[in-house]
């Protein structure tokens, strides 16, 4: 009888434990199996990592107290029954949240689950050894195993770390041999502090005009991401592979280069990102330049010469180097005659051999001109005629909600920059608006979540807006106070701005002010998403 009860208890406990382990493994997966990130998440969400109710089953121990006057057998049975009942309740009433990204049962997760399972079997064995008679110890151990489930999974993660790094090494080797087995494949590496992803997309469109091209999807820009792309998506007929390379610490770029042996290297810009791991700007420069320094003799580097950090770096590899830019001297590919309109950006690219081509694009902003220049330069070095390159670029769509041009009606154009909410981006968006020949209108609720500087930064935004806009619509009375103050400081006439109560009000006003003449409206920062027109 008692053995049966114990078995039932173990079954109930195991069931509940499986639920808890799955949850923890899921969180570990979302934290990229990085114990330190996982631990930080636990510290930030203790209520999700440890449930106080997990101790309920242990409360059955009270039945063993002499105070009830029960016999040992009765007390024991009641305690176990209580524990079984509470486990059933815990299973039944477990928090069922809708998961945005489900747990994916990758081989790594399976190995992790097996290891965790082994740890639990070990726990159970110890519990059993302590003895059924010492029920108190037994129950406490089971309960502890539930409460500490997150730590147990973490221990399992640490235990299998050497295995995982071996597995990864095998993946890297596999990817490397795939690349080696394709002698005609040429790899183009792209790195930089910003502009990597946009450049990658534009470049893909350009090269696809004549070649079979593969690029790393989304933001797969780590060594593992590049490896996965090669193993899963590289086909024997691919002629060019565009690998985006991201860096969080020194040597990150060199490691990916060693894997793919890039023939072309693009460096878009160098800025102060990830300073906490890099420590100095010098380290950032050195790391980004790994893409150039590891190029083979017959390789080519493509560098943005307008970037002062790139210009200042003492490059030692004397392979062929192509410079692109707008302002710098001695450029191989130069953008000139830049004009913005409600249709997009138009500019001329002058190549070092004297030829030139006019580029028309729906993409806006100076940063995109650099991204396009890099793509034009590589496409042209790969012998694609300039006209064909221009045609390919014309078809490149803007990224949704990032300076996205939308023709709303014959006379009204909207620049949707609602994804953006940082001061640099906002300033750039206003520059774009300012360069439009049409009537310029700004609709914004201001920027939020900028911490203590929020007031000042919004005021600065208002100062920029005052210089550029013909009309300003602020959405929300209270939250746009810093902007109102800023406009007043800049002596912007009250007749030219309007504080709307809500989005409906703002749209009403927008239609009113844009009705009489061709206008461009900049939607800056996140507006409620009903904005479909």
């Amino acid at each position, binding site marked *: 009888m008692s053995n049966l009860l114990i078995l039932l208890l173990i079954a109930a406990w195991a069931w509940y434990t499986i639920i808890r382990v799955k949850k923890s493994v899921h969180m570990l997966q979302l934290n990229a199996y990085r114990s330190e990130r996982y631990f930080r998440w636990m510290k930030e969400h203790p209520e999700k990592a440890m449930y106080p109710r997990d101790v309920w089953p242990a409360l059955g121990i009270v039945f063993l107290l002499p105070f009830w006057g029960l016999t040992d057998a009765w007390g024991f049975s009641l305690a176990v029954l209580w524990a079984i009942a509470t486990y059933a309740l815990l299973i039944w009433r477990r928090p069922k949240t809708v998961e945005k990204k489900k747990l994916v049962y990758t081989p790594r997760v399976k190995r992790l689950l097996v290891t965790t399972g082994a740890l639990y079997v070990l726990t159970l064995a110890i519990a059993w050894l302590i003895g059924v008679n010492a029920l108190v110890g037994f129950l406490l151990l089971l309960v502890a195993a539930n409460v500490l489930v997150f730590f147990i999974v973490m221990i399992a993660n640490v235990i299998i770390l050497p295995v995982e790094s071996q597995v990864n090494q095998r993946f890297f080797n596999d990817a490397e041999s*795939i690349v080696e*087995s*394709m002698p005609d494949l040429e790899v183009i590496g792209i790195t930089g502090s910003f502009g990597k992803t946009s450049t990658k997309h534009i470049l893909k*469109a350009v090269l*696809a005009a004549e070649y*079979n*091209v593969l690029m790393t999807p989304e933001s797969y820009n780590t060594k593992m991401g590049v490896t996965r792309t090669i193993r*899963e*998506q590289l*086909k*024997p*007929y691919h002629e060019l592979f565009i690998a985006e390379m991201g860096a969080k610490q020194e040597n990150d770029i060199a490691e990916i280069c060693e894997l793919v042996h890039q023939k072309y290297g693009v460096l878009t810009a160098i800025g102060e990102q990830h300073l906490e791991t890099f420590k100095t700007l010098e380290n950032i420069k050195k790391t980004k330049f790994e893409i150039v320094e590891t190029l083979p003799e017959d390789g080519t580097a493509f560098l943005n010469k307008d970037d002062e950090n790139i210009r200042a770096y003492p490059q030692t590899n004397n392979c062929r180097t192509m410079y692109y830019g707008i302002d710098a001297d001695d450029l191989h590919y130069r953008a000139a005659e830049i004009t913005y309109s409600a249709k997009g950006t138009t500019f001329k690219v002058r190549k070092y051999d004297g030829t030139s081509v006019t580029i028309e694009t729906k993409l806006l902003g100076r940063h995109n001109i650099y991204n396009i220049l890099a793509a034009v330069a590589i496409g042209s070095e790969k012998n694609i005629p300039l006209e064909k390159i221009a045609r390919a670029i014309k*078809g490149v769509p803007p990224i*949704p*909600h990032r300076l996205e041009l939308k023709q709303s009606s014959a006379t009204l154009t909207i620049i949707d920059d*609602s*994804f953006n909410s940082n001061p640099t981006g906002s300033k750039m968006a206003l520059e774009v608006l300012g360069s439009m020949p049409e009537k310029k209108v700004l609709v914004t609720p201001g920027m939020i979540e900028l911490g203590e500087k929020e007031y000042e930064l919004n005021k600065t935004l208002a100062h920029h807006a005052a210089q550029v806009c013909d009309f300003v619509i602020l959405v929300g009375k209270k939250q746009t106070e810093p902007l109102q103050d800023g406009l007043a400081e800049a002596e912007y006439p009250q007749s030219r701005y309007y504080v709307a109560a809500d989005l409906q009000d703002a749209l009403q006003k927008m239609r009113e002010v844009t009705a009489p003449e061709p206008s461009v409206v900049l939607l800056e920062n*996140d507006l*409620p*998403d*009903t*904005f*479909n027109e």
Partner: protein
Amino acid sequence: MKTKVGVFFGGISVEHEVSVISGLQAIDAMDDRRYEPVPIYMAKDRTWYTGEKLLDIEAYKDLDGLLQEVQSVTPVPAENGGVHLQKNPVPKFGKREVAHIDVAFPVLHGTFGEDGVLQGFFELLNIPYAGSDVTSSAAGMDKIMMKQMLRDQKVPVLPDVWFYQHQWAGQQASLQKKIEDKLGYPVIVKPANLGSSVGIDIARDAASLETVVDEAFAFASKLVVEPLLSDITEINCSVLGDTEEAETSELEEVLKTEDILSYADKYQGSAGGKGESTGTKGGGGMENTDRVIPAPIDEELSAEIRRLAKDTFRILGCSGVSRIDFMIDKSENQVYVNEINTIPGSLSFYLWEPAGKDFTTLTHEMIQLALKRERNREQLTFSIDTNLFALQGNNGKGGKQGSKR
């Protein structure tokens, strides 16, 4: 790594045997440094087979024996692109796939292979494939559709009268009158959508028209009637490329209509009978009695034919290699487009060799064109990433990437 090219041949059409020969020729021609051809044979009962044995033309003499030795397969989409050839029936244990292919290369002539049906299957499998797409294949196969499209773009085609079986049954008299008024006798009656010469016959008067039409309805439910030109020269021209860029081959004059150079001709160097593909050239050389390459016509006419061939190819939206057949009415010195073969016999390699492009280069360019079409398509939007059903009852909620589009 070599690109695995699934070469599909055989099929459900009167040109089954011709297709086997064309398919094996293409496999033989493929550049083995770049490509690894995988033979995929479609039997007349619509089952697919793969296996080394299929490469041996002699083995087809004992077809039942051959099919015992090769693996029956089902093409299924693979997880990361391309297609797996899954064993049929699917084994419970062990490996399910016999082979993987990256690109499909159809060499099936006629119905179910050249008319867009197989191409539609490739579309659903989501694999790049050589040759024309669904629409152009279908338009190229249907004589009426093809002529309507060409006529609309001022490409010369013969006048015609066309009708369905039920129309003939109900309004025979008026259709006959229409034929007499518009075309006069003699006329040639053809099924609208058969790739070969089956069901084609000549009517010299009203009485024979009735017989010929009735006979032709055994092969198709839609017929086209054209005037019969008495004094013609037949010239064929092959086009390679796509709607953006295309080039033309050498021209041939056909003395006796034949579709293909037989396997025996190519590999055994002797004229030999092989069912439909009777030998068309002797002694292994390119000289032969039935066709003259290059066609003995003047430069001006040749230039016009090349231009019309390219126009036809572009108007129908073709890709890969096609052969366009022309008729020249000698009495009026007028050129007409007669028909298009979107998968021509032997892939017209014999027209490309004298134009300086060997069969290996031809297959290579066809595969590259298949990949180019795939690239161009990647830029297009096929489905909108919004579930319209999910939008119902959405009371204005949704994140940044939510319902905002």
